[in-house]
């Protein structure tokens, strides 16, 4: 049975000021996933998230939330979505509590929700201070409180760790995991740093220049990491060794230094045969190991077309 998709786009294309910023993006966010939406700055992350919320003029393609098309059931669907897009929208002349109240009234929710979300983000003691006097991290948490108000089934967070210190980032991560694990929430979180989300994300979408260049579970990304592992061989004369292995002339990578040979991932038998032939030809082998690229490297490989 196919996974239930909480958010899905089909053929999403969008132009801004005559420039095409999204090309045929097909996002698929399964239920109870933390979907890490990755890409360099300006790749189209915020535009995609804005389209998921109906904040931009209708694009080419469709946006479905909870299985229903957004443009036909906007108010009903958005009632189950909490969002924090770019910098949080905060009225500096109101207190933290009044800021939450203003949004609560718009949702038509019971008064108790205000205290509940302020407690969730740890702002209870500062609730009666003017939001204009909040620190950047507190503003970010207040923004998250606004997003959590309707107890949303889907939470869309655009770079929520912007401006947070290490402690704040760890807290945010713990909060997201708690929301998913204990409440079954689906969370889409965008970031330009893979390191920020690889520990929380269950699924990953990577966007580059408006095109989705990878989408799948974090395991699939990790498998990709494994398959792009390389065999590193330390010997006395890398160039001589390479000549002894003519079948790898095409696939062997450039020799990083005179004593190191880098080969693609091989089967166990292939490794045994390579070692046997080199030793038989009198080449010493000092060290032999697999080098696995970090997810960061994979991300860079996918998002910078000329890096590899």
């Amino acid at each position, binding site marked *: 049975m196919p996974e*239930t998709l*909480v958010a899905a786009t089909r053929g999403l294309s969008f132009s801004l000021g005559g420039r095409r910023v999204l090309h045929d993006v097909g996002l698929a966010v399964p*239920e109870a996933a933390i979907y890490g939406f990755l890409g360099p700055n300006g790749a189209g992350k915020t535009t995609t998230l*804005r389209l998921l*919320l*109906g*904040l*931009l*003029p209708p694009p080419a393609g469709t946006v479905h939330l*909870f*299985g*229903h098309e957004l443009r036909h*059931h*906007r*108010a*009903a*669907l*958005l*009632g*189950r*979505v909490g*969002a924090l*897009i*770019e*910098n*949080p*929208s*905060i*009225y*500096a*002349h*109101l207190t933290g509590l*009044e800021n939450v*109240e*203003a*949004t609560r*009234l*718009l*949702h*038509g929710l019971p008064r108790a929700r205000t205290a509940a979300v302020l407690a969730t983000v740890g702002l209870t003691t500062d609730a009666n201070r003017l939001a204009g006097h909040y620190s950047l991290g507190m503003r970010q948490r207040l923004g998250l409180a*606004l997003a959590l108000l*309707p107890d949303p089934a889907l939470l869309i967070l655009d770079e929520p760790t912007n401006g947070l210190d290490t402690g704040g980032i760890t807290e945010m991560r713990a909060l997201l995991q708690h929301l998913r694990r204990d409440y079954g929430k689906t969370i889409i979180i965008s970031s330009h740093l893979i390191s920020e989300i690889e520990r929380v994300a269950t699924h990953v979408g990577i966007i580059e220049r408006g095109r989705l260049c990878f989408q799948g579970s974090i395991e699939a990304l990790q498998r990709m990491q494994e398959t792009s592992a390389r065999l590193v061989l330390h010997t006395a004369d890398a160039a001589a060794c390479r000549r002894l292995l003519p079948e790898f002339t095409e696939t062997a990578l450039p020799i990083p230094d005179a004593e190191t040979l880098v080969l693609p991932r091989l089967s166990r038998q292939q490794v045994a045969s390579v070692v046997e032939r080199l030793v038989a030809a009198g080449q010493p082998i000092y060290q032999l190991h697999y080098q696995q690229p970090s997810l960061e490297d994979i991300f860079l490989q996918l998002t910078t077309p000329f890096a590899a």
Partner: protein
Amino acid sequence: MSLPLASPSFARQLSRCLAADYLKLRRTPALWLAVAGGALPVLLEFCIFFFRGNVILRHHAPPWFRYLSASWEVAAVLLLPLFIVLLAGLLVSVEHRATAWKHLYALPVGRATIYTSKFLVLVQLLVLAHVAYVGLLIVSGYLLGLLHPEFGFQHQAVPLGAIAHLTARTFVASLGMLGCQYVLSMQSRSFVLPIGVGLACLTTTLPLLRWEHVGWLPFAGPLLTLQSMREAGAELIVPAQLAAHEIGSLLWCAAAFLAGLLLRHRNVG
């Protein structure tokens, strides 16, 4: 996935928006401006009459008529338009400054509702300013009668009917201005642009007051309404019917409101 797809009704959405908009008025200058905007012209005219009333009311001129028309002139020509320009700018800038549109438009209330609610709050503040102005004007007239019995305020009944007509018609005559300034303030993230345009409109309207078609300009409305006030013996007469320029003001307001609504739908949140 099954979920109830019924959206809240427009009336329910509007009452939610209004409740939130009232809350957002806290600690803003907009609310104070509405009261102060009503009080300022009264205070000015009170001081003028208090110190110079014996000159102005020479030859037993009817005091209420003189007092009302002098005060209304200052209020309608200059202060009311300035007040509307500032009020619309201030009220809307609260959202611009908080970069709140993207947040508001992602909530389960329609854009049209958010737009309408804000406009209604603006209209209510205008009503508040009118009520504050008229209330204070009558009270200050009584006060002048007490402080300077020789002015004769106490010998003449307060022309409440005429004041009510004048107030209601001035309100209608200023709605055109209000609609235009609201849309302009909504469209511009900068606070300066709508205020600049408003002041430019006001200063170009004043020299055009002798032009026969000036009634079609929204900034001329309150002054033209004032001109329909007449003195008949000791009576003050203001017809209850709306004049052509007041109908024009309503049309301006409706047109601006609809144009703004269309623009809002196209705007990026």
